[in-house]
């Protein structure tokens, strides 16, 4: 699984990255968590509000920071 955290390095973006990593770790799945900070790359996904989370090329979260437990549910699918 390929997970991307979109955001220009604000506090919430870092928090989302942490939560994503926690979720991946506790699920024990194979997944890469990568940060996307370039404004053009972020716009490429068409998200209106950062932080956003992209899983395998699809935007699943935009404009908020779900808890690690909520992310776990998302990653299970």
């Amino acid at each position, binding site marked *: 699984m390929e997970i991307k955290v979109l955001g*220009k390095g*604000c506090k919430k973006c870092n928090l989302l990255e942490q939560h994503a990593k926690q979720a991946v770790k506790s699920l024990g799945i194979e997944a890469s968590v990568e940060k996307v900070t370039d*404004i*053009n790359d*972020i*716009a*490429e*996904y*068409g*998200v*209106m*509000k*950062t932080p*956003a989370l992209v899983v395998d090329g699809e*935007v699943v979260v*935009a*404009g*908020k920071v779900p808890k690690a437990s909520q992310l776990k549910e998302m990653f299970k699918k």
Partner: protein
Amino acid sequence: MTDFLRNVLEVLFDALIFLRNYAFYPDDGETFSLMRVLSLFIAFSISGAIVVFLSQNAVLKFFGPKSKKGLSYLVASVSGFILAVCSCSVLPMFASIRKKGAGLGPAVAFLFSGPAINILAIFLTFTDLGADIGIVRIVSAIVLANVIGFAMFFLYRKSETVDEDEKTFHLVEDTSNLKVWQRALFFLTLVAILVFSVYWALPTAIFAVLLAVQVALFFSLEDLKEWGEATWDLVKKIIPLFLIGVFIVGILDSTLSDEFVVSLVGTNNYLTNLLAAFFGTTMYFATLSEVPFLLSMLDLGMHMGPATALLLAGPALSIPNMIVIAKVLGKKKTLTFVVLVAVFAALVGLIAGTFIYS
């Protein structure tokens, strides 16, 4: 050398006094008043409430690739009220609207008007600079956003294409469960408190009680927590830089002479307006700090026409801002945008200076 040091210390001391007076002594250092800080706090609370309780989707859907273009411009030019609460969220939205949404024109309209029509900017402009310049700022920011947005679209209609695929345009999920009328009532109450807090204590108290009742009846603990967090988030993002901004204004206020300011921008003609607009487009102002800056400049003898030009061009653009915009749009389009902003801001300053403030 000691003279020089003493002068520097004096200027720094003046700047501190300026900062203190700006925050607590609205009547030229005469009477201590907490009113300013309190009403600023209310304005921040409203901004926080906008972030949490107003549906951003209701607005964002007008920026989709298939939305009616005329409507996109119109909504873009006024939506800063809801969307541009913090300047940090404006640039990513701008980039996305242009690339995956309604295109360059509406994106530029949004970028331009946002810093002028969010509630904090409106509030501060009205209380510090007065209602006439406040109204001119709001109206001309909205009108110019449409004009400049459309001009950009028209000039670059060949090289800019809109991605029609709606699936790549992502909205934000709403978090609150409040009903529409509950949100509306809540905002009206908050705005009423803000408006009255400047003038009368009694209506403020009545609306405050009304607010407390609403909060008790409608809001969950989770709602309140989110509201508090959003407000505190904004305070943390804006206030430290703003205070530094006011301090720097204090330094300028102490070092610039009346004669100097008057000789540069003391009259209202096309040169003074262009100068003010050009200064505004390049200079970086920390969020909101354009207002105390102008307060000081007007005090030193700046004419209100050029002040308006600066107010329109200033918060929308700065050199650091241009660098990011250039990364998104490229150098040529960015330069066009800057020139359009400077020219139109100067024009509005000139017109307002001649016909409105006299």
